[in-house]
């Protein structure tokens, strides 16, 4: 009996550090995959050339095209009944939304809803800087039950990748760091999609002083039974931080803490140095 009790206690003590190590390893794997994608993907934000609105149609290629693309003969894009068509060198192709299509040395990705399509165009060498990160900090991993939103409903927000999306007010995540409480608005982006992330666009005292000036994004992890994990080690910059081809999403009201959250992605370059929330001259 006593051996059983002792064994149970040992297991109980051992589980927490092991879980922490697993968590750290998972976050580091996720970062590595993201870095690899940014460095190698033909549709990496670091290869973004432009994101024109499709509107009544676009021409690509020659110098007098809407979007000049070196080495490409004339290509024409148009939207017919919500379908994006590409005409190039005598053939017509349908471009699937949200997926990349090769066109010469370039890649095209139609995004957004029918009638409001933008076409993301990628190509060329990597531009800008690779991401850098704070060391993983297990103290900046919180869990809580999501509270109902103060004002339920929909709101249009700028997304990480510079699109405009309708989001659902998903609730409030209340937590505390170093004895200081905070309440973050949580939104499902885009609205209604069960596989959409529950996102928080937050600002903290590191903004402009080592992290992206206009705040970072972090997605909550549902744990079941209404519980959620907020792991600041997974915080990332919007794509606007990598390339000016992406519009900068506007931060959300109220989602600021006066503490420095030294976790997640860092930032160097672009914009002016902006004082952190709560900072005074």
């Amino acid at each position, binding site marked *: 009996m006593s051996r059983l009790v002792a064994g149970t206690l040992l297991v109980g003590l051992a589980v927490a550090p092991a879980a922490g190590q697993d968590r750290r390893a998972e976050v580091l794997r*996720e970062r590595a*995959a*993201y870095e690899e*994608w940014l460095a190698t993907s033909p*549709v990496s934000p670091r290869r973004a*050339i*432009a994101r024109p609105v499709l509107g009544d149609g676009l021409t690509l290629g020659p110098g007098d095209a*809407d*979007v*000049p693309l*070196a080495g490409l003969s004339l290509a024409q894009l148009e939207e017919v009944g919500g379908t994006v068509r590409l005409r190039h060198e005598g053939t017509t192709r349908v471009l699937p939304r*949200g997926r990349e299509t090769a066109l010469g040395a370039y890649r095209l*990705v139609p995004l957004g*809803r029918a009638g*409001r399509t933008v076409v993301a165009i990628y190509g060329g060498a990597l*531009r800008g800087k690779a991401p850098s990160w704070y060391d993983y900090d297990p103290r900046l991993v919180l869990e809580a039950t999501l509270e109902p939103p103060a004002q*339920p409903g929909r*709101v*249009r*927000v*700028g*997304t*990480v*990748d510079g699109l*405009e*999306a*309708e989001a*659902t007010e*998903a*609730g409030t995540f209340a937590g505390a760091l170093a004895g200081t409480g905070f309440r973050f608005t949580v939104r*499902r982006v885009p*609205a*209604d999609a*069960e*596989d959409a992330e529950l996102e928080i666009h937050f*600002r903290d005292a590191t*903004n402009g002083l080592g992290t992206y000036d*206009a705040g970072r994004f972090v*997605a909550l992890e*549902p744990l*079941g039974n209404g519980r959620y994990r907020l792991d600041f080690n997974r915080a990332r910059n919007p794509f*606007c*931080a990598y*390339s*000016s*081809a*992406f*519009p*900068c*999403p*506007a931060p*959300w009201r109220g989602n600021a803490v006066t503490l420095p959250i030294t976790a997640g992605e860092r930032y160097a*370059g*672009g*914009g*002016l140095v*902006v*004082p952190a929330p709560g*900072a005074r*001259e």
Partner: protein
Amino acid sequence: MTGALLFLAAAAVPPSPAGPWRAALDLAGGPLRFALEVAGRPGSWTGTLCNGGTCNPLSAVRVAGDSVVLEIGEYDATIAAALRGDSLVGAYRNVGNRGPRTIPFRAARGRWPAEPVDPRLVGRWHAEFLLDWEASPRLLEFRDTPRGLEGTVVGKGGDYGLFWGRTAADSFSMAHFDGSFVYMLTGRLDGDTLRGEFHAGLRGRTSWRAWRATDAPHLAPPTEVTRADTTAPFAFAFPDLDGRLVTNADPRFRGKVTIVDVFGTWCPTCHDAAPLLVELYRDYRDRGLEIVGLAYEVTGDPATDGRLVRRYRDKFGITFPLLLAGRNDTEATAATLPQLEGFGAYPTTIFVGRDGRVRRVHAGFHGPAVPDLHARVVADFRRTVEALLAERTTP
């Protein structure tokens, strides 16, 4: 001794991936089961991925040593795993526009058994998905087939594809995985009610409950917004850097073409756009162009924001008025510019005609990092300004 040698010889030959596999993705909320089958021989492997009776060919199967890579080309997705005897262990990876998504994957040799289906489950159910504190209607369908439980989930945008799974006692689990969509419906029969979770992707979890359906739910299509109100002059009223109120009704804007630049000093793309606005103002001011910058800043504190905006003004040599419009969150911007529906990007350039009404809204900007496109947007802005300057004022 001979036995040991035989064992070593066998271990040196990589195992073959050929044959059926009971595969699963380990979602945060439990395993999503599907079937894989690999056929062929070294150098010419093929494969299929099945959800119950629906099978699709894999675009490529690559085997090198104990590494097996299954490509689902249509979705730019891969399953990469290590083959260890009778098991495959690795990860499913699908690259979206916002980066890679990875879900743990494992498989064991053999086929999933076709298990008997609880007849109480079969048929149509009217479900409510509890998404973000709101009940959102769905239709569930469960069928008893020779392959076991099959069915689907129907939402306002159509169905979620064919689901396949099993029932056990009062519980069930069925899933759809086609290389891109990762859906799993789990639940339990509780009297006349079904209750459970809908799992989407690695982490998505949505609670739901359902009752026997009488007819299909009706769902309204999502609304589309985003445009500028052109029925009335575009109105703004904010303090300048000296605290003086500047409004669209001021004499300096009367009868002029006006560019309203919604910007923030924190926004790198806005820094890219500023030199063009300075050029336009220099070139067209005498012909009737006015520009006003509306700064949406981080702190909302006029002293701090004012200092930042002055630095921005001095950096670019801006001589048109820059106004402290407020904080840079979406709601604040939307509240201060009620005629601009669906604002969501910095910078946003609003072209206003001589009659004070919005003619065009341009979200975002191409910076000089891509010279051709920068030249294009420069020419585009110039054309717009020239066209608006050429318009006659309606008496």
